[in-house]
């Protein structure tokens, strides 16, 4: 272990759990129970070599210290573009932990699940209303699984109509999951570019659209934070050739009460509840990626589906056209509970205000920084805005350096180097839950960093200076991957 200063003697890093503890120690107490396990000896393993042997306090100290090396939304501003790092309400955490939700078994008879099914039914309806679509499945575990599900619906529909077709059109600004999901669904990807306003042109779609194309995947607002104004015209182009329009709804936070995908010619979309509906990201999940469809795709939705008859909710699997099942049981129910609580909390007014304030915050940052950093596109932005490092490049300062320097100012950096079409992108999504004062402090920090880039570029290139560890050697990690601890031999 290293010391981060001659005077500070406490280690800055935390030993691995495997490096602490003592043989025979455990944080689990269960009174001795006598008798054989009933299992033949030859099926049994020896003890698990290297497994931890820690006490309860030791475990808690370990993770408390690890938590102190982390950054969450309650630490400071977290304007990670495309990720919608908004406040995750505590009340949602509280209700998700109610035993009536947490201790329910998915294979219990439906009579024991009436509250859960009612909730899911209500959430489906709410998401349909918000998105302007006709039917919803809550099964997908995240956005990418939603994409796969949505594309499978398209494929099933087209297969019935004559053939699955071969291709999916994906703009170059799209998130990586769009092409990856297309491949996984057995499609080839046709990439198209955007115009100099950062938008997809109907003509660009028309150029590649034909009867071999199953669908266009469009993100709106797109990953530049720009609203695809021509979406209806684009949808017409796609529909005219018998294709369908998939909307990547990761950016729904910009649209609630402002415009409904259902009115944009969209046939199917997913919504990332861990973005728009404020469920916590957990360092990389769990999330939920419900898929909403127009009626033409309803029959293909995954099973089981929830049906209401009278006051009773039931599960039905007998939909002959259904694509099957994409996830075990009912999806990430605990996440869905939080999302439902969020929708109840905000109601129609609150949801509308949410998107409005998301737009206000993004446009405010955009305006205040437009003379400090080079803006990627001149268009008005929606819920996020994208800058580049063009101005700083002349001092050989890159987006990475700017991002790392922001850490010294106590802020989480924006998303960097995405979308790929913008060189050195800095993609800033403030979300609606940030106050003007926080935005101002961030703007000041960015302005100060731009000044530092002029006056002392070295300060940025060696940043961060005040984090628990400094820049990490990613090349080394990839070259000879060490992916697990191994006991010392000797």
């Amino acid at each position, binding site marked *: 272990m290293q010391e981060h200063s001659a005077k500070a003697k406490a280690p800055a890093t935390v030993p691995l759990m495997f490096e602490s*503890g003592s043989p025979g120690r455990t944080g689990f107490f269960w009174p001795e129970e006598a008798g054989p396990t009933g299992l033949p000896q030859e099926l049994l393993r020896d003890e698990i070599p290297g*497994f*931890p042997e820690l006490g309860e306090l030791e475990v808690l100290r370990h993770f408390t210290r690890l938590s102190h090396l982390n950054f969450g939304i309650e630490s400071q501003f977290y304007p990670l573009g495309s990720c919608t790092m908004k406040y995750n309400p505590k009340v949602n955490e509280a209700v998700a932990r109610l035993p009536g939700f947490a201790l329910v078994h998915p294979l219990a008879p439906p009579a024991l699940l009436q509250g859960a099914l009612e*909730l899911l039914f209500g959430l489906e309806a709410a998401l349909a209303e918000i998105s302007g679509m006709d039917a919803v499945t809550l099964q997908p575990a995240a956005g990418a699984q939603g994409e796969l599900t949505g594309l499978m619906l398209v494929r099933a529909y087209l297969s019935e109509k004559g053939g699955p077709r071969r291709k999916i059109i994906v703009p170059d600004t799209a998130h*990586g999951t769009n092409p990856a999901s297309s491949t996984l*669904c057995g499609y080839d990807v046709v990439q198209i570019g955007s115009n100099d306003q950062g938008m997809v042109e109907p003509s660009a779609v028309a150029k590649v659209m034909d009867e071999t194309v199953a669908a266009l995947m469009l993100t709106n607002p797109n990953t530049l934070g720009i609203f695809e104004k021509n979406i209806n015209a684009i949808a017409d182009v796609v529909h005219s050739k018998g294709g369908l329009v998939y909307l990547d709804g990761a950016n729904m936070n910009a649209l609630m009460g402002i415009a409904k995908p259902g009115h944009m010619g969209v046939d199917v979309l997913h919504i990332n509840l861990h973005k728009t509906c404020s469920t916590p990201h957990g*360092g990389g999940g769990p999330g939920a990626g419900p898929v909403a469809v127009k009626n033409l795709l309803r029959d293909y939705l995954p099973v089981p589906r929830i049906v209401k008859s009278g006051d009773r909710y039931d599960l039905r699997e007998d939909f002959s056209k259904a694509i099957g099942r994409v996830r075990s049981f009912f999806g990430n129910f605990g996440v869905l509970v939080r999302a439902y609580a969020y929708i109840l909390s*905000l109601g129609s007014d609150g949801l509308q205000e949410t998107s409005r304030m998301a737009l206000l915050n993004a446009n405010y940052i955009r305006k205040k920084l437009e003379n400090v950093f080079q803006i990627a596109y001149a268009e008005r932005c929606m819920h996020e805005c994208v800058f580049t490092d063009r101005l700083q490049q002349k001092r050989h300062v890159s987006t990475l350096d700017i991002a790392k320097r922001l850490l010294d100012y106590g802020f989480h950096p924006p998303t960097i180097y995405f979308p790929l079409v913008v060189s050195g992108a800095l993609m800033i999504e403030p979300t609606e839950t940030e*106050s003007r004062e926080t935005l101002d402090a961030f703007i000041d920090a960015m302005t100060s960093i731009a000044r530092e880039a002029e006056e002392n570029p070295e300060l940025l290139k060696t940043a961060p200076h005040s984090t628990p560890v400094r820049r990490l050697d990613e090349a080394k990690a990839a070259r000879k*991957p060490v992916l697990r601890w191994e006991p010392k031999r000797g």
Partner: protein
Amino acid sequence: MRYTPHTPSDKAEMLRAIGLSEVEQLFDHLPASLRDRAQISLPPGLSETAVKRRMAALAAKNGTAENWSLFLGGGIYHHAIPSAVDAVISRSEFATSYTPYQPEVSQGTLQAMFEFQTLICQLTGMEVANAGLYDGASAAAEAVLMARRLQDGRHRVFVSRALHPQYRQVIATYVKNLVDVELVEVPFTERGGTDAEFLAQQVDERAMCVVLGYPNFFGVIEDLAPIRALCDRSGALMATVTTEPLSLALLKPPGELGADIVVGEGQSLGVPMALGGPGFGFFTCQKRFVRSMPGRLAGETVDSEGRRGFVLTLATREQHIRREKATSNICTSQTLCALASTVFMAMLGKSGMRRMAEVNARRAHRARERLLKEAGLVPVFSGPFFNEFVLKAKGLSRLQERFAAKKIVPGIPVAEFYPELQDCLLICVTEMNEEEEIEHLARTFGEG
């Protein structure tokens, strides 16, 4: 408004800075045909108190493991979860962070991922593990997809019928649009295990992989040796799927038995049942396959001052770099649940995991004895099991009401998934089912 901190004067000043006078101008560049119809028709927002009440009312309509006697497993298990687990994952530094793209301020998540990967390797006896996938079912599907990447020219995927039926459904959904994959269903024997003889006849150089549960859906501990031998002979990969990873604290780990890929559902290790989600899928394989793996990987490295640190690594496999050529489309996964199980495994540790597993096995075996002797149930399979087993109860459907009246769910009726197994129940007994409950169960059967 509930979570937007903007006061009227904040709004006015911000709009002024932007050069606008009304919030609506922020989106007046959108087509009016969209804007005019965008109003959301939902009830108005509720106070926090009202939300809690509404949610509590819904929750109260569910039958839980607290107020019912549940003998339910089948992929989701009710186990003791030390309170320390929730204390850790509730910390906002863990719960509210994103995927650790900025490692300098994400060492907490990254080190925990690294520890998770290590624990999963130790438990399964495998060489490398990723940081988690959505669930056991999609992990099983990803195992097939990885085998496909590794086994060029081989198309046939042998899936045991004794694998969890929902997992088989998900695998089928995932591969159905891939022309180069053909699923072959493998029957099970009276032992309750996968039919090795069937496999011996069918597995040849066209075989991509064999996928089977360990323990399988019937709770039966598969005999992997003959299947390993077949795979060796044919060049197929052996992929095992564990829905109850607590069993691996007691059973020989699949890695030791020669599995090439070991996947499963981790819910059983520290995550509440929650209607089956969120849990997490785990995914392990031999080291030589690492660059074909799906999902995130945390790796060790050093910082510019030489201190140990952790980063996401081998990202060139992933969608954000490789796009349509990525090993998987997964992005957001189930990290917080994987963290929960990391805390769980750390708390129980070597001896605690063993202890808990033994209690499960012991109670389940005793319960089965008792149900056979005292309640007249009939054995269905002869294979060894960990904490769940199938028994036959004549006239099962007529017993439902009797059990409901006593707030017991005696097991999962398997005929729904296996029509030939009429009147059969998959009965699960964990450390959460007390002796009196089991007695109660036996008595209620016996009354008939």
